[in-house]
């Protein structure tokens, strides 16, 4: 099954910072079939550097980033559910972002692109859902930054979501998380080819972007998974180089992942999206996280992973405890995995079982929008 990326156009969106962004394109993919009642829609939220291609294979034969979770017989079973995934606002994979052409100038936005938030991303998705004529989502699911969008959905559009699945995520970025993002941003902005973000048509800030990605990759793995995957193994050599060439397997891997990233991701998108994550605090404007979540009307399945040190389990537990304090229907499990933050993408056996059971219940107990009102 070849997954086709589609697009939808929207006239404007007023952002949290007050700026109105015009002529917005949203890239999205769908899998499975919409049922007659339009009650089987699952919106998948991608993580930081993901895109709309979540499942199936594209024209180049590349599988979607969550193809192990979405498809016939998978956790998000496309024989039963109509699954939708859209590239986020500020992205570089079809949805309007800093690399898009500013209609006012005819040139790419670069750093003139307005600052965005997770809430802006979600409001744009709501426009897409309305445009597609979907009255209520069966579920919104996603890991990492995807999970932040899930939480934002629960609070911003409580009646539009039957079930929320925030995975390996947080209700607010911690100092450590902001620090890692800032390190990546400084690597990019310190690259001489960055040119204040106006590098389109010239040399890309490839060094900076690849270093940013290397730091990111370290945070996605765990000490244990890195020991297992690389150990201290040397790369194609018997002895140290005693120079600055690649000695270790792990160096080679990080360089490879860094270089590969430059080809598929825009440096300005990196800056804007990491800022959106850093700004994210679900409780902002409320006396507490529990008060923010009080408005939610969804059932929740919260999942964290034992070895995830980037989004540690305590952050998921904060969400869960806030939900419990308001007597919400919340299910929580900390799954055992050695894969660190990447676990939600790669270690999906147990995740599949609990997501499947949870969704089946949400189908049985689905409350239509009419019933809610």
């Amino acid at each position: 099954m070849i997954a086709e990326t589609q697009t939808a156009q929207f006239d404007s969106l007023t952002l949290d910072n007050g700026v109105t962004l015009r002529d917005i394109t949203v890239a999205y993919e769908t899998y499975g079939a919409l049922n007659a009642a339009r009650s089987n829609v699952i919106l998948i939220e991608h993580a930081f550097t993901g895109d709309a291609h979540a499942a199936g294979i594209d024209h180049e034969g590349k599988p979607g980033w969550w193809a192990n979770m979405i498809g016939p017989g998978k956790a998000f079973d496309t024989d039963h559910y109509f699954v939708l995934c859209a590239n986020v606002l500020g992205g570089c994979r079809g949805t309007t972002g800093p690399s898009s052409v500013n209609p006012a100038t005819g040139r790419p936005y670069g750093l003139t692109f307005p600052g965005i938030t997770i809430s802006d991303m979600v409001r744009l998705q709501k426009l897409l859902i309305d445009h597609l004529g979907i009255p209520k989502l069966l579920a919104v699911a996603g890991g990492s930054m995807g999970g932040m969008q899930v939480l934002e959905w629960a609070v911003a559009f409580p009646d539009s979501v039957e079930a929320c699945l925030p995975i390996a995520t947080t209700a607010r970025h911690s100092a450590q998380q902001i620090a890692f993002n800032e390190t990546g941003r400084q690597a990019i902005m310190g690259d001489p080819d960055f040119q204040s973000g106006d590098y389109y048509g010239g040399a890309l800030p490839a060094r900076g972007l690849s270093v940013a990605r290397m730091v990111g990759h370290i945070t996605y793995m765990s000490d244990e998974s890195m020991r297992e995957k690389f150990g201290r193994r040397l790369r194609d050599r018997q002895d140290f180089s005693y120079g600055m060439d690649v000695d270790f397997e792990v160096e080679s891997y990080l360089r490879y992942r860094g270089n590969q990233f430059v080809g598929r991701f825009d440096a300005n998108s990196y800056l804007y999206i990491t800022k959106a994550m850093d700004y994210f605090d679900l409780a902002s404007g409320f006396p507490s996280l529990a008060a923010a979540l009080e408005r939610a009307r969804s059932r929740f399945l919260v999942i964290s992973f034992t070895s995830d040190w980037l989004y540690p389990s305590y952050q998921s537990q904060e969400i869960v405890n806030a939900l419990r304090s308001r007597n919400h229907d919340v299910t929580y499990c900390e799954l055992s995995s050695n894969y660190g933050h990447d676990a939600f993408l790669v270690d999906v056996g147990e995740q599949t079982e609990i997501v499947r059971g949870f969704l089946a219940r949400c189908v049985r107990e689905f409350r239509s929008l009419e019933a809610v009102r």
Partner: protein
Amino acid sequence: MNVSEVLGRRDYAIISQLIPEGARVLDLGCGDGALLAWLKVNKRVEARGVELSRDLVQVAIARGVTVYQGDLEASLADYPDQAFDFVILSQTVQETRHPLVVLKEMLRIGRHAIVAFPNFGHWRVGLNHLLSGRAPKTGLFPFEWYDSPNIHFLTVIDFEELVAKQGWQVDRRLFLSGPSVVTALPNWRAEIAIYLFHGPA
């Protein structure tokens, strides 16, 4: 369909009789969620569970039960007052670190508490101890002293005294010996005691 035929536990059958249609139920130490799943289907209750074991939690979620993976004693404080009609503690009160705190919390977050516990006063336990000179080891308490999860031993009389001291009101008390209900001499004859009670008015 009888719950004990399905779940194989007589205390579950009794507990299910105590819970009316559509009640809000929290099961502390809910295991694989079997009781809650049964109550959801047969009594249409709003079911929630707390369970520490990751493996059991996964089974419970897969069968569609709302369950929180965590320590039951640490979890209680987060629930709001009177959030549930019934809070169940089925055969785990003797495993809790602070049983009185747990019981009081149950009555804070629930209108009623249901507690089932193995009765340490049962004659076989006493006899076993008397004859062997060792910490009792019976079908009901099958563990060696050094690997037993039971850290507080209580009898029917002990529990009755606590209930009276706290001013709790017992709505129902049921005593089981194997499959049979015991009426006379429960402290001596009951293997499992089940109490439905609520706080002072």
